C-alpha cells in the first residue's frame, strides 16, 4: 500500500490475462461451488423451518400433560444453603468451558408435576404465569441449550417464586430428584417472595444445597456476594398498565407514599412528616369504601379522595418504598416505572442487581431510623440531580424491571459476566441510558497523558501525482526533529510512484492548490458532512473559537528567543 505500485497493476488484470482454458475451469469450479453452497443453505434452512412450524402447531399444550411424579416421604432432602458458597467453591466452572462467544449455556428441565405420596401437589399454584414467562424467555434466548450435557447452568422448572405457595420439605425433595442435581451444583433458582411468618427469612427457606439463588429481598446477611443474584420483586401491574414516560422535572407532590401495608409505627411517623410539611407530601392508603378485589389494587385513597394507582406515582418527585414484612417490595418496580425517584427505607436490603447497577444515580437510600429526617434529606438534593435520577429510574425499569424476561435476562447476564469476566459488560453499558450513550464521548485514549518527545511521530502523506509538491512537503517535514518515520500513501492507480530521489515532471503537476477553491469540490464536501452526520445520528463536530499558538506567538519579543519563531510567517 505505502510507496509501492504492485497493487494497482494486479487486481483488475487477473481474469483477462488468464488463458481461456483456465478460465473455463475456473468458471466451472466456481459454479459448482456456488451451487453447492446454495444447496447446503437450503438444506440447513429447510428442515429447521419445518421444525419450527411444527413447534408452533404444538403450542397449544397444557401443563396438565406434564408427567406426574410422586415423591416418596423418605426421599432425601438437600442441605440448607451454604452461606460460604462462592463461585470458586460451589460452582463447577468446567461445565461452562471456553467458548468464543463467551456465553454460558442454560438448560431448562422439562416440566413435571410433583405430588407427595397421597397425591397432593407440592405447590398450590403450580407453574405461575410469571415463571412460565421467565422460562420461555430463557428458552428463546441465546443462552438456551437443549443439550443437557453441554449446559453450564440448570434452571429447574419447579416454580419457587413465591414461598407462600410452597410446601418446603416436598419442594426440596423434588429439587433433589432432578437428574442433574448433584448437590445443587450450577443450578439456579428464582425466588421473589422469600420467608414466611412470623420472622420472614430474607432468603428462600427451601433447602437447596449449593444452588445459586436469584432472590428478591436479600439482606446483607443472607446474600452471598458474588454468588447469589439480587433480583427485583416483579410487579404484575407492569404488564397491565402502560405509563408513558414523563419528562423529568418538578412534580405536583414532593414525596408520595403509596404502600398500603405499612407498619403502624412507620405510618405514624409519615403522618407526623405530613403534618410538618403539608401539601408537599401525599400519604395514600387502601380505600376502605371500595369492595375488596383485584380492582382495589388499582386504587389508593387519602381522606375519601380516590386516586388511580399507579398513575398517581407520576405526580410526585420522590416515592417512598418502605420495607414490609419482607425487604423486597413490588412497589419499587411501580415507582421506577412512573419515573418517580424511589426513597428506599429498608435496612440491610441488597438492592436489585446491585452487583452491576449504580443505584446512587437512581434512588435515595435512607436508614429506617432516619425516616423523620426524610424531608430534610430529600430537600438537600439539587434539582438537576432529581431530574437525572427520575430519568435514570425510568431507564432502570425499562431495561431491567419491566418484564419477567428483562429480569431473567439480566440475571443470566450477571452470572455470565462472572464466568467470563474479561468479556463482561461495562459500567457504562449497564448504567447509561440510551440518551447518554449517544451523546457521551468515550475517548479510547482517556488517560490524561502528555507523551514525551522521544518516540516522535509518524508523518503520513497521501499523494496522487503532484510529485513536485510532494517532494517539497517531504523535504520540509523531514527537518522536524521529532519526526520518526515518513509514510507516503501512493494513491494513483495509473502510475507507479517514483523511485528513489529521481524527479520527473508531469504536465498536470503545475495545478497545485486549485482543489479547495473549486466550487464543486466544496459542494461535495458539504454533502460528505451531511452524509456522515446522518450515519452518526448526530453531528459530532464541535465548533470552537480558539486556536493553539506557541506561547510567545507574535509577541513583541526577540525572535531568536522563541521556540517556534517561523510560525505564521508565510
Amino acid at each position: 500500500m505505502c510507496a509501492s505500485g504492485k497493487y494497482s497493476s494486479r487486481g483488475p488484470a487477473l481474469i483477462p490475462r488468464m488463458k481461456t482454458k483456465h478460465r473455463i475451469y475456473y468458471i466451472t469450479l466456481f459454479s459448482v461451488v456456488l451451487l453447492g453452497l446454495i444447496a447446503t443453505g437450503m438444506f440447513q434452512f429447510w428442515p429447521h423451518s419445518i421444525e419450527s412450524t411444527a413447534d408452533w402447531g404444538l403450542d397449544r399444550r397444557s401443563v396438565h400433560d406434564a408427567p406426574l411424579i410422586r415423591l416418596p416421604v423418605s426421599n432425601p432432602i438437600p442441605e440448607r444453603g451454604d452461606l460460604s458458597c462462592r463461585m470458586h467453591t460451589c460452582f463447577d466452572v468446567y461445565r461452562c468451558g471456553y467458548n468464543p462467544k463467551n456465553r454460558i449455556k442454560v438448560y431448562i428441565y422439562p416440566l413435571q408435576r410433583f405430588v407427595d405420596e397421597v397425591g397432593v401437589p407440592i405447590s398450590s399454584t403450580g407453574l405461575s404465569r410469571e415463571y412460565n414467562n421467565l422460562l420461555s424467555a430463557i428458552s428463546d434466548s441465546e443462552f438456551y441449550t437443549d443439550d443437557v450435557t453441554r449446559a453450564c447452568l440448570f434452571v429447574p422448572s419447579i416454580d419457587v417464586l413465591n414461598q407462600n405457595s410452597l410446601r418446603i420439605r416436598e419442594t426440596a425433595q423434588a429439587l433433589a430428584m432432578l437428574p442433574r442435581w448433584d448437590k445443587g451444583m450450577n443450578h439456579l433458582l428464582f425466588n421473589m417472595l422469600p420467608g414466611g411468618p412470623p420472622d420472614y427469612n430474607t432468603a428462600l427457606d427451601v433447602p437447596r444445597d449449593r444452588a445459586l439463588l436469584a432472590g428478591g429481598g436479600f439482606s446483607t446477611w443472607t446474600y452471598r456476594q458474588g454468588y447469589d443474584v439480587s433480583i427485583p420483586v416483579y410487579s404484575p401491574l407492569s404488564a397491565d398498565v402502560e405509563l408513558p414516560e414523563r419528562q423529568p422535572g418538578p412534580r405536583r407532590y414532593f414525596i408520595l407514599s403509596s404502600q398500603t401495608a405499612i407498619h403502624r409505627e412507620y405510618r405514624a411517623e409519615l403522618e407526623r412528616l405530613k403534618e410538618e410539611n403539608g401539601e408537599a407530601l401525599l400519604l395514600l392508603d387502601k380505600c376502605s369504601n371500595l369492595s375488596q378485589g383485584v380492582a382495589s389494587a388499582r386504587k389508593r385513597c387519602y381522606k375519601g379522595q380516590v386516586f388511580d394507582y399507579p398513575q398517581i406515582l407520576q405526580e410526585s418527585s420522590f416515592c417512598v418504598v418502605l420495607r414490609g414484612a419482607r425487604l423486597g417490595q413490588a412497589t419499587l418496580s411501580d415507582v421506577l416505572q412512573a419515573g418517580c425517584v424511589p426513597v428506599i427505607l429498608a435496612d440491610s436490603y441488597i438492592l436489585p442487581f446491585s452487583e452491576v447497577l449504580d443505584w446512587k444515580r437512581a434512588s435515595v437510600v435512607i436508614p429506617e431510623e432516619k425516616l423523620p429526617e426524610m424531608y430534610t434529606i430529600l430537600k438537600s438534593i439539587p434539582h438537576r440531580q432529581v431530574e437525572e435520577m427520575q430519568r435514570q429510574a425510568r431507564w432502570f425499569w425499562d431495561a431491567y424491571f419491566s418484564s419477567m424476561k428483562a429480569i431473567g435476562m439480566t440475571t443470566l447476564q450477571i452470572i455470565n459476566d462472572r464466568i467470563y469476566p474479561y468479556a463482561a459488560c461495562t459500567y457504562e453499558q449497564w448504567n447509561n441510558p440510551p440518551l447518554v450513550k449517544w451523546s457521551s464521548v468515550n475517548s479510547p485514549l482517556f488517560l490524561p497523558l502528555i507523551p514525551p518527545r522521544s518516540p516522535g511521530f509518524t508523518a503520513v502523506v497521501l499523494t496522487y501525482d503532484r510529485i513536485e509538491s510532494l517532494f517539497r512537503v517531504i523535504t520540509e517535514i523531514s527537518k522536524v526533529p521529532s519526526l520518526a518515520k515518513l509514510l507516503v500513501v501512493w494513491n494513483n492507480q495509473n502510475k507507479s510512484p517514483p523511485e528513489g530521489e529521481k524527479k520527473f515532471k508531469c504536465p498536470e503537476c503545475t495545478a497545485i492548490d486549485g482543489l479547495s477553491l473549486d466550487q464543486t469540490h466544496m459542494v461535495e464536501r458539504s454533502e460528505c458532512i451531511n452524509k456522515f452526520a446522518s450515519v452518526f445520528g448526530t453531528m459530532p463536530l464541535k465548533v470552537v473559537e480558539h486556536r493553539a499558538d506557541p506561547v510567545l506567538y507574535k509577541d513583541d519579543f526577540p525572535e531568536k528567543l522563541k521556540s517556534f519563531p517561523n510560525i505564521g510567517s508565510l
Partner: protein
Amino acid sequence: MQAKKRYLILLSAGTCLVLLFYFGGVQLPSSGRNRHDRSHNGYRPDQPWPHFSDPLQQFLLWDQPDTEEYNIHISPRQKRDVNTSVYKGKRCRMDSCFDFSACKRNDFKVYVYPQQKGEKISESYQNILSIVEGSRFYTTDPGQACLFILSLDTLDRDSLSPQYVHNLKTKVQNLHLWNNGRNHLIFNLYSGTWPDYTEDLGFDIGQAMLAKASISTEIFRPNFDVSIPLFSKEHPRTGGDRGYLKYNSIPPFRKYMLVFKGKRYLTGIGSDTRNALYHVHNQEDVVLLTTCKHGKDWQKHKDARCEKDNAEYDKYDYREMLHNSTFCLVPRGRRLGSFRFLEALQAACVPVMLSNGWELPFSEIINWNTAAVIGDERLLLQIPSTVRSIHQDKILALRQQTQFLWEAYFSSVEKIVLTTLEIIQDRVLQQESRSTLMWNSHPGGLFALPQYSAHLGDFPFYYATLGEYSSQSTNRSHVFMCHPCSHPPGLPIPAHPQAAGVCCQITIIVLWNCDKPLPAKHRWPATSVPVIVIEGENKVMSSRFLPYETIVTDAVLSLDEDTVLSTTEVDFAFTVWQSFPERLVGYPARSHFWDSNKERWGYTSKWTNDYSMVLTGAAIYHRYYHFLYTNFLPASLKGMVDQLANCEDILMNFLVSAVTKLPPIKVTQKKQYKETMMGQSSRASRWADPDHFAQRQTCMNKFANWFGGMPLVHSQMRLDPVLFKDQVSILRKKYRDIERL
C-alpha cells in the same frame, strides 16, 4: 471448448439439484416423524420450553402483601435491635457493629491512640499513623471521633515474624476506649503463618473493622471490612512514582503476551497453581518462570523440574519482562495477595489474577474488570487463549485504567490509607457518598468530594461520560472579583453589554478584604448586573477561594482589583474555558524549574517558551475548585498562604494540576500584565517587594513536599482567537479588540 464448459456446468448443476432433493427428501419425513412422536407423548424431553395455553395463576396474589403485613406485630424498631444484637463477630455489618451516632453529621473524624512508651512500631505502621494524623480527618479528641485507630502495630500478625507484637490481646483489652472494638479500624498486611496461613489475627478484634491485605471472600464482611493491597516496606509514604505508561502505542501488543517470575513453593498451601505454571510456559511470548530456591531447606523438597526451572529462571530479568509484557500473571502465593499485583499495575502490565477467593483491593469501589483480567485457578490452561482473545481496544482501555487506578489509589501509603478512610466515610455519610462512576473515572474518588454536590454534572470532570445534557450549565459565566485592599474599584468588565449577553448569567462578587470601610454606594460604578459585596471576615488570602453560596454558576472569573482586562479578553477566555472546564484558564503565566544547584524548585516570571501556572489575579476556572481548595487542602498549607498573604495562586495551580494531571491554559491578552500598569495600588508594592519573590519560591517547595512530588506540568501552547493576527480584514475577526493596541 465452449461445449465442454457448458456440459460441465450442466452436470454440476444437476448433481447439486439431486443432492438437494436427496437431503431435503430425507429430512422432510424425519421431521414429520418427530412431530408424530411428540404429539403421541404430548411431551419430549430436551426441547425448548413449550408455550402453554392454559390460564396460569399469578405468582403473587393481589392481597398477599396486605394480609401478611397486618399479621406482623413485632415493631420495626424492635426488629432492628434484634438484628443489631444477633449479627456480631463474623457477621458484623455497619448496621449491627458500627455506632453511627458517634459520627455527627458531616463530620467524620478519626482518632489515633497516643503511642505508648516502649511499644515498637514498624516503619510502615508509623507511616500509616502519621498520614492519618496529617489528614483532614484527624482529631485529638476521642469524644469527637467517629473512628479509632490503634497505636499498637497490627500490620504483621505472622507469629514467626520479628515485627510480631506479643500479648496484643491483653494490650488491646486494657485500652479504655476499646469498647469491644466498636468503631475501630485495624490495619493488617500479614496474618497467620506456616503451614496453614489462617487469616486469624491472633487476638479478638471484637466489633472492629479490618483493613486487611490478602483477605479472602470467606472472612471478608461486605461493606464492613476494607480489602487493602499488600505493599512493601519501601512503598513511598506520600506522592509516589507515577505509572510507567508514558504514551499509548497502537497496536498495544508488547514483546511478551504474558509473564510471571516468582517463587514456587513445591508443597503446602497455595503451591498448586505455581507448580502448574510450566504447562503454560512456551518460552516465546508466554514466559512463566519459577524458582525453587527460597528458604533454607528447599533442597529437601525439590522435585524433578527444579533444576531446569531454576536455570530458566535466571535467564530472564524481571524488570525487563515487566515493562515489555502486555499481561502479567498474578498468581496467589502462600497468602492470596502478592506484591506482583501492585508492580504489574504500576508497570501498565494488565494483571491476570489467579487467586481464587481473594477479595480484590478496594473491591467495594473499584470495578476491577476494567483494569485486570480475573482468571480462575481451575482454568489455568485456558489463560493463554483467554488473554489472546481480548481485543486490542480492550487491552488499550485496560492498560490506561491500570495507570489511572495506580495513581488514584495505590501509588503511596498515603493514598491507600486515605482511600480506606474515604470508603468508610462514604458509608457513614450515606447521602453524601460517591457513585461508582466517581470512583472509577478520572480524577478518582480522592479528588471528587461528594459533599460538594450529589449531581455529577456539577463537577467539571464527567461531561464527556455523561453526555451533553448534563453540561448545559457550562454556558453560564460568573464574574468574581477579589479585593485585597484598595481605593474605590474600577470595574472594567461587566458594564459592557456584550459580556452580559443573553446566554450568560453574571454576578459580580466583591470580596472586601480591607481594613478600610467600604466606599459609599454612589462611588461604585453603575452596572447592568448584580454586584454583591462580601466583607472578608478574617481578611485572609484563602478567603478568595471560599466556596461562597452566592456563586451559582460553574465558571468563576477571579480578578484582582488592579487587573487590566478588556471585555473581549474576558469573553474569549470564557469560550476557551467552556472547552476545558476542568482546567485553569488565565492570562499572565509563570513557570517552575528544577534548580539543580540548590536542589530545590525554582519559580520564574520571565517570558519563556513555556509555562506551568497562570495567575489567579485573572483566571477562569470551575467553582468546584473553590470547594476543593477549602476542603481538600490541609490547614498547614492554607495557614502558610494566609500568614504570608502570598502564594494562594501557586497553591491553586498545584491543586488543579494535581487533579487534572494537565497544565493550565494561557489565553491571549492585549496588554501584558505588568507591574508598571498597576499604578500606585498596594498590590503593586507587594509585587515590588523582593521578599515576595523569595517567598513564592519557598511556597513552591513546601507545596511540592506536601503533594509528594511536583504536580505542575509545562505547556508550550497559548490559545488565541482563530483569526488572531492573521492577514485578513479586522472586520472579519470576532475578538478584534485583542489585537488592537
